[in-house]
């Protein structure tokens, strides 16, 4: 009996040792040399930030930065689990709609004292970006890049339909008749007999190429479609941004925008949601199933890849009743509130937010860095690659031409509630105004 007891105990100790063994291994801090863990999700950007990390290491031989890239789909889950396990990275790439939950749960270090001490110039960044990550005098990150939206279109297809690039420069839109934007979409829609959407004989049941591909899995913000048009129709998401507590999805101006999209579907200019493909819009555009859609600047290198079979180009968003409005969004770098190396982590974040790093990133032409001068470098890098991406920069610089995506608590739940409402409206299960009113009540109830 005794032997069995000891064996059992030994087994238990073994498994306990195995369990505890994985938690306490982060003891490299005391001896001077420090390794910082840094997380990002975009594999396109990994090389650029590795270059930053190398430059940083050269300047600070004591500090090594270890990059880990996790796909977007798992990024936030992994991060949250690691934070819960006390094993999270020292610094991570942060996104505007995801960071509030970490602020609420005290996971992100307030860097305002460091910013004041080191006198970081917050005006060097693209206007408004720095304030996205501030709340009540505290600051949770320095801006690293920005993105805006534009139209992307199949150049050969539109040329064949007699639509010139010049005609796309000044499109107008309104929710009643769709303006010249709808005319272009109609002309770009072609049925199997080659008739376009303006032809009286156009057969909407046999469409070969849709003029426009909408995105309906677009959360509560509609960044890839309805959001931009609704705002250009005078819609505002939130009473106060960032950190508002009352949404206004019941605004008739939003319902009117969704109704316009439904009219596109009814006319056969866009695929119905219940007949839509589950594949991404860029795959469908490349398969010539659609002619025009919205694209974010982070998609530039996908659409303008040298080996792309279809030739694409970008055009500005249409001008709505209150002007041309594009969503602008910016990422930042957050410091883990629980890190053992606060000073070193701040040094790295400061470097990431400085011209030294952002010029490296800009020079590679993958994203537009937050520092204005580095943004121009990115534009030049794109031009050197033969990519015309001027529209994204022009839109970002146009006074009053941009709006920030809503930032509040409960972002994930709101995303699902509003997306469900928009989809049920587009599927015809409910009319837009009713569905959005119901969703808005649900959303605002989260803040009570």
């Amino acid at each position, binding site marked *: *009996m005794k032997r*069995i007891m000891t*064996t*059992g105990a030994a*087994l*238990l100790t073994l*498994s306990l040792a195995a*369990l505890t063994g994985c938690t306490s291994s982060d003891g490299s801090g005391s001896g001077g040399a420090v390794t910082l863990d840094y997380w990002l999700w975009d594999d396109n950007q990994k090389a650029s930030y590795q270059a930053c990390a190398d430059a940083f290491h050269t300047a600070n031989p004591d500090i090594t930065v270890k990059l880990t890239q996790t796909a977007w789909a798992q990024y936030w*889950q992994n991060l*949250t*689990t690691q*934070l*819960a396990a006390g094993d999270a990275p020292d610094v991570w790439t942060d996104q505007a709609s995801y960071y509030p*939950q*970490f602020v609420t*749960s*005290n*996971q992100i270090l307030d860097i305002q004292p460091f910013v004041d001490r080191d006198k970081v110039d917050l005006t060097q960044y693209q206007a408004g970006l720095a304030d996205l990550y501030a709340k009540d005098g505290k600051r949770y990150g320095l801006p690293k890049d920005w993105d805006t939206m534009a139209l992307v279109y199949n150049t050969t297809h539109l040329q064949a339909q007699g639509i010139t690039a010049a005609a796309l420069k000044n499109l107008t839109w309104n929710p009643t008749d769709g303006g010249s934007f709808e005319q272009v979409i109609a002309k770009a829609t072609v049925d199997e007999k080659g008739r376009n959407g303006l032809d009286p004989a156009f057969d909407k*049941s046999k469409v070969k190429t849709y003029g426009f591909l909408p995105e309906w*899995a677009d959360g509560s913000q509609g960044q890839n479609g309805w959001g931009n048009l609704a705002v250009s129709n005078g819609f505002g998401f939130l009473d106060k941004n960032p950190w508002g507590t009352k949404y206004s999805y019941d605004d008739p101006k939003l319902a009117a925008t969704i109704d316009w999209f439904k009219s596109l579907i009814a006319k056969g200019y866009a*695929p*119905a*949601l*219940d*007949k*839509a*493909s*589950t*594949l991404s819009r860029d*795959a*469908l555009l490349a*398969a010539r*199933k659609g002619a025009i859609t919205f694209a974010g600047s982070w998609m530039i290198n996908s659409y303008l890849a040298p080996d792309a079979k279809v030739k694409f180009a970008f055009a500005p968003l249409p001008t709505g009743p209150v002007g041309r409005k594009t969503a602008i969004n910016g990422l930042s770098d957050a410091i883990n509130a629980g890190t053992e190396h606060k000073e070193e982590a701040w040094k790295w974040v400061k470097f990431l937010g400085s011209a030294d790093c952002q010029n490296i990133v800009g020079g590679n032409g993958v994203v537009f860095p937050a520092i204005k001068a580095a943004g121009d470098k990115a534009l030049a890098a794109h031009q050197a690659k033969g990519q015309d991406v001027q529209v994204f920069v022009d839109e970002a610089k146009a006074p009053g031409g941009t709006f920030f995506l809503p930032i509040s608590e409960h972002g*994930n*739940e709101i995303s*699902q509630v509003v997306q*469900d409402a928009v*989809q*049920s409206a587009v*599927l015809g*299960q409910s009319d837009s105004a009713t569905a959005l009113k119901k969703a808005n009540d649900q959303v605002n109830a989260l803040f009570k």
Partner: protein
Amino acid sequence: MGQLRQRDDRRVGWLFVAPVLVGFAVFYAYPAARGVWYSLTDYTMLGTPSFVGAGNYTDLLADRQFWSSMLVTAYYVVLNIASQTVLAIVVAGLMHRLTRSVVLRATLLLPWLVPNVTIGLLWMWLLDTNLGFVNHLLHAVGLGTVGFFTDANWAMPAIAGINTWAYTGYTALLLYAGMLQIPQHLYESAAIDGAGELRIFARITLPLLRPVLALVLVVSLIGSFQIFDTVAVTTKGGPVSATRVIYFFIYQQAFSYFHMGYAAAAAVFLALVLGVFTFAQLRLLRASNSDLA
């Protein structure tokens, strides 16, 4: 004589069971107990949980999305279990009476060997409205295209169909193994009496298969309730909430909204429901006694 002591195997028996027991305690019992505890708290993964009593459960019972998810799951289970079991019985019956080719049996298992995520991706491409082969065929024979994953009426039948495709072979093999236990002489006497194949199947195979069938039904019902990966790959619960099955609901609550306590409550509730189902099913089908005895 008299020197041989009765050896007691019980002690050494525990030793052999120990590794499994430790694994069970560490990976099942402990997490399950923790899960029950979390279901009584407002745990969010970050921060310390505080006790909220039955709060999560009362919220859950009033949550319309939760009940909608339960209904959607039940719909899936009915579609999937019905089609899968009927098909599997037919296939097993054919294998039993017609051919005993090992190659055929192995082939039947192939879809089951493919990981679910791969199956989801494979069928997502095949069934895609614009670029999928199935819709290409439908279009070619003059039928309209169907948005299998984007049409609220089609999404669930499509997912049930995919999983039926994936699991029929495995279920058939289990039933086939059960059929092999039925004594051959019964079939011989039936043949001498001039019974046809259909009659033999209805009067001999099915009644004597009952205990195995009951077990297979219970196991596949529980498995079917746990539908997750196919949904996560193809529809992500959409369109609207037509395929937001209960596991996807729990997953979203836990890992998208970080309502760990609430998700744990839903999981505990689901475990209770499954327990009741299993008990009722085993009793109704009298699974523990065979007609052969």
